[in-house]
């Protein structure tokens, strides 16, 4: 007897439908109980778990590999807020409305770029980035597979397309209301008829069918006032610096003062219950102020790449605040009697110097965070300082060189 075996595995996991189901019922970011943007709180509520677990997972995968911060940013962009029609990304492409401003959406999208870079070039290497991303996605997959019906499903947005887990009915079959957690059964729908006249139902004390609607609190002006003050402060300080040439008033100082204004708004907002939207600008501006304070050039040495190929005259220094410096000394005419001196400094970026093969080199390479390759030696991670003296026979001159990067790579090689 010939037996035909159907090898299709019906009981297996259909990844496509699982992903579609996840997207259709994806979490919403709640307004209550959030720490920053409500991504962790939303996931916790969606799957009925403590948001602290989600937060711990995000922090751990941020430190180990960097996937946590990327997933948080993506969640912030793609998960709609509680009462919004659509997520920030959907709103950007015109599919619904979101309460998040377009400026913040663009800023978050831009922040995804360094977050992705961090994922591949993280402190623990490439595999830690892959592992942390896999751990987070795997955790989310398991949560959705095992706990999709335990929490509060996210209400459909403009693009969610409805649930994929609803039971299907044959044409003409009678649907029952035995199990329909997602309200997929048309028989259970009780939709408002848009053509029906609006009636106000008066309720009495005995009528317990009245739905409690919490009145929306008056919007605090702290956020708007503080943001306006911060922008005006920044503008006033920049004009003051340009007009009077106040050398003390550096970019880190200006950012620090603006961070102080924003922080003051947060402190006041904590008491008058407003200004929570100032948290992100305060963190960004404050972090920029702290980073630039530690940068050797303090953000005052310009932006963009600097490429120099001197032949006769060597500048005392080649500096950039943000960008790469590439100094090629292979065509420089060295004086055999007088050593040539220069320095290269980059706050954030790569510093690369190519020295001729026929000069003596006395070089000091330093970096706060990054990889350093200084002629024959190399080192990476943080607070690196390497000193090399490399003399060659029949040298045509001597070069005394200092190369520094605040955050970035340093490379000094023979040409």
């Amino acid at each position, binding site marked *: 007897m010939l037996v035909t075996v159907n090898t299709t595995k019906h009981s297996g996991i259909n990844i496509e439908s699982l992903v579609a189901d996840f997207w259709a019922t994806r979490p919403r970011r709640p307004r209550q*109980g959030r*720490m920053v943007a409500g991504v962790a709180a939303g996931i916790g509520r969606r799957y009925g778990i403590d948001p*602290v677990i989600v937060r711990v997972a995000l922090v751990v995968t941020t430190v180990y590999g960097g996937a946590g911060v990327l997933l948080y940013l993506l969640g912030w962009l793609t998960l709609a807020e509680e009462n919004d029609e659509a997520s920030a990304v959907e709103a950007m492409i015109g599919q619904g409305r979101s309460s998040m401003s377009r400026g913040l959406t663009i800023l978050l999208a831009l922040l995804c770029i360094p977050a992705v870079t961090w994922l591949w070039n993280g402190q623990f290497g490439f595999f830690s980035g892959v592992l942390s991303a896999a751990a987070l996605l795997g955790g989310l997959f398991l949560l959705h597979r095992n706990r999709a019906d335990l929490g509060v499903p996210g209400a459909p947005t403009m693009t969610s397309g409805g649930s994929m887990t609803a039971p299907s009915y044959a044409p003409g079959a009678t649907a029952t209301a035995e199990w329909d957690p997602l309200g997929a059964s048309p028989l259970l729908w009780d939709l408002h008829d848009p053509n029906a006249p609006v009636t106000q139902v008066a309720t009495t004390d005995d009528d317990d069918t009245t739905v409690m609607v919490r009145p929306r609190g008056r919007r605090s002006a702290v956020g708007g006032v503080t943001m306006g003050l911060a922008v005006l402060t920044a503008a006033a300080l920049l004009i003051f610096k340009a007009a009077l040439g106040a050398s003390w008033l550096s970019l*880190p*100082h200006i*950012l*620090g*003062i603006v*961070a*102080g204004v*924003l*922080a*003051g*708004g*947060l*402190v006041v*907002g*904590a*008491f008058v*219950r407003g*200004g*929570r939207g100032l*948290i992100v600008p*305060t*963190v960004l*501006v*404050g*972090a920029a*102020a*702290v980073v*630039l*304070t*530690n940068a050797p050039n303090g953000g005052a040495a310009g932006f963009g790449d600097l490429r120099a190929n001197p032949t006769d005259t060597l500048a005392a220094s080649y500096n950039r605040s943000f960008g790469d410096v590439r100094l090629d000394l292979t065509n420089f005419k060295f004086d055999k009697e007088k050593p040539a001196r220069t320095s290269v400094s980059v706050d954030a970026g790569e510093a690369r110097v190519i020295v001729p093969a026929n000069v003596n080199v006395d070089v000091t390479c330093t970096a706060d965070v990054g990889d350093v390759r200084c002629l024959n030696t190399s080192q990476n991670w943080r607070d690196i300082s390497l000193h090399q003296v490399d003399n060659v026979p029949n040298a045509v001159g001597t070069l005394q060189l200092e190369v520094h990067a605040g955050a970035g790579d340093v490379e000094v090689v023979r040409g």
Partner: protein
Amino acid sequence: MWRSSVADLERRGGPRLVTLLFGIGGLFAMAYALSDGSMADLPFGVTGLVAGGAILVGLLILMWTVRPSARK
């Protein structure tokens, strides 16, 4: 325990502690930038800065607690 305490405080209408913490962090960032990264060299030092911040927050909480609308 801490989370429930925070939630209780906020439910009662007290200050938003997360917002307050970020605000204090921002004030420290300002102090760090304006002292060119050497807060320890300030005349009052880091300890004095923390003490000043604690006095400021303490006064704000005190004023918030005894404000006239809270006693009605």
